[in-house]
């Protein structure tokens, strides 16, 4: 009966399909952005190496997967605490020293870090494009009415929601979250409460690296990556954070979805327009809502 379906019906089906794929892609961008958002929200630190840390984590998952022949999900579970430790140490011993009234030192140091990570990965893994193998899951789809939804894109989106709910619960309900917010408000007075701001910052970056690991799992299984892929992930993360509004985690999901939908629509019109369409959507939001959709941060 397919051939008798009216053309207009097929067109609208395609639009729905494009929108759904775009929304699900937004989940990946939200995962990129959430880690960046936490670090900025708590320490006012703009981490220019964020994208490279995602790629670093993807290589870590790839290495664990191929070394021990593990399922990538299991590898990510192993990589997560290692990445937490790496983030903790990075913040405690390096990035904490850059924090202060001047915003330039953290930018310079994380920019340098970005170059170091890229070249380190190039040295260790060569410039080849890699992918984390997933087997049959890679192409698995669920038929849902008019559209087929990929299992992995769906898992990506659901993971983004779980990550955001989890982070919000931690930040607004748990004692450590109170310490995050208090330290972010006023580190000197936080010290009078028995809080050690240096360790709180290290824990926050460690947490961001766990989110980075989740992002890396879905990035690495979805598409090819190579040591130089970090900076463009950073751009997507930035754009999602800005579209959503600084300081709001749900905003990063909205920002990610705006970016994802714009990209898939652009790609439908012409595959070469995919990336450009995302940037144009970002600029359009910036022009009409300079503070994003859900601005939270006051400064």
């Amino acid at each position, binding site marked *: 009966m397919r051939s008798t379906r009216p053309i207009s019906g097929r067109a609208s089906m395609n639009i729905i399909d494009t929108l759904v794929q775009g929304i699900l892609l937004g989940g990946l961008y939200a995962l990129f952005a959430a880690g960046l958002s936490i670090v900025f929200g708590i320490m006012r630190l703009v981490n220019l190496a964020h994208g490279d840390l995602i790629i670093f984590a993807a290589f870590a998952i790839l290495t664990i997967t191929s070394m021990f022949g593990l399922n990538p999900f299991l590898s990510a579970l192993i990589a997560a605490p290692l990445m937490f430790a790496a983030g903790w140490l990075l913040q405690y011993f390096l990035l904490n020293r850059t924090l202060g009234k001047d915003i330039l030192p953290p930018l310079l140091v994380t920019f340098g870090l970005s170059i170091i990570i890229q070249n380190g990965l190039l040295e260790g893994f060569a410039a080849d494009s890699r992918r984390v193998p997933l087997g049959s899951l890679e192409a698995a789809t669920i038929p849902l009415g008019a559209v087929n939804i990929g299992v992995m894109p769906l898992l990506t989106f659901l993971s983004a929601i779980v990550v955001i709910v989890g982070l919000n619960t931690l930040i607004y309900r748990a*004692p450590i979250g*109170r*310490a995050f*917010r*208090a330290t*972010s*408000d*006023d580190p*000197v*007075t*936080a*010290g*009078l*409460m*028995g*809080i*050690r701001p240096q360790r709180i910052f290290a824990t926050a970056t460690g947490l961001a690296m766990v989110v980075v690991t989740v992002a890396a799992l879905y990035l690495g299984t979805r598409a090819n990556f190579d040591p130089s892929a970090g900076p463009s992930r950073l751009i997507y993360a930035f754009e999602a954070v800005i579209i959503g509004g600084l300081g709001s985690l749900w905003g990063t999901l909205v920002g990610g979805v705006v970016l994802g939908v714009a990209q898939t629509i652009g790609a439908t019109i012409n595959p070469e327009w995919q990336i450009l369409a995302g940037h144009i959507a970002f600029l359009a939001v910036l022009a009409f809502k300079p503070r994003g959709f859900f601005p939270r941060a006051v400064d």
Partner: protein
Amino acid sequence: MTLLQTHALTARYGDFQALFGIDITLEAGETVAVIGANGAGKTTLMRAISGVLASAPEQILFEGQPIGALASPDIVMRGIAMVPEGRKLFPSLTVEENLLIGAYGTKGSGAWNLARIYDLFPILKERRHSPGTALSGGQQQMVAIGRALMSNPKVLLCDEISLGLAPVVIKDIYAAFPQIKASGASIVIVEQDIGHALKVADRIYCMMEGRITLSGRSSEVSRDAIHSAYFGAGVHEHH
């Protein structure tokens, strides 16, 4: 028993020396007031004791141990809590969260908990879910005091708690001090208001230009002596 003692305590901000050899003592169970005009060094003294400013280890002794070089989180864990000048509530936290964070560094129990703080300042229970900074100045000061008490301190440092508050509100806040004393805490009060200081303190220290200019029991020091120690008349020539 001497609980807290400073010994020839000095402090400086860059080239500016703020404290010139301060010697004060606080006995267990005692309330001591430090009075003096703006810029006398009272807040600097509090910041040094609470670990916000680092000092030489032996310049501050607590329970006989040198604590001068410890950072503020270590100081509060040893049992010295501060109500900072200007209250310094955390704007991102509700009233209740501000109180809870006061107990962050000190696991373990004592006389003070959320329920006891709400007994002491019942208005805070009504406002518990408001942002801390949405409260009136007096209520914010109650939160700041409650927050410090949540760590169950042996020594409570109160820096300028009456500053900027209406007299009736100040009276309300000082009305809580007998209960705080009864819980076993020793108290250091920094005040510009001599009347309140004399009423609540067992002993007073007067500070001027980074030095102690007068000390004695509240009942024994004369207003004239305080006046000259406070403003410097007759103590030494100004330049």
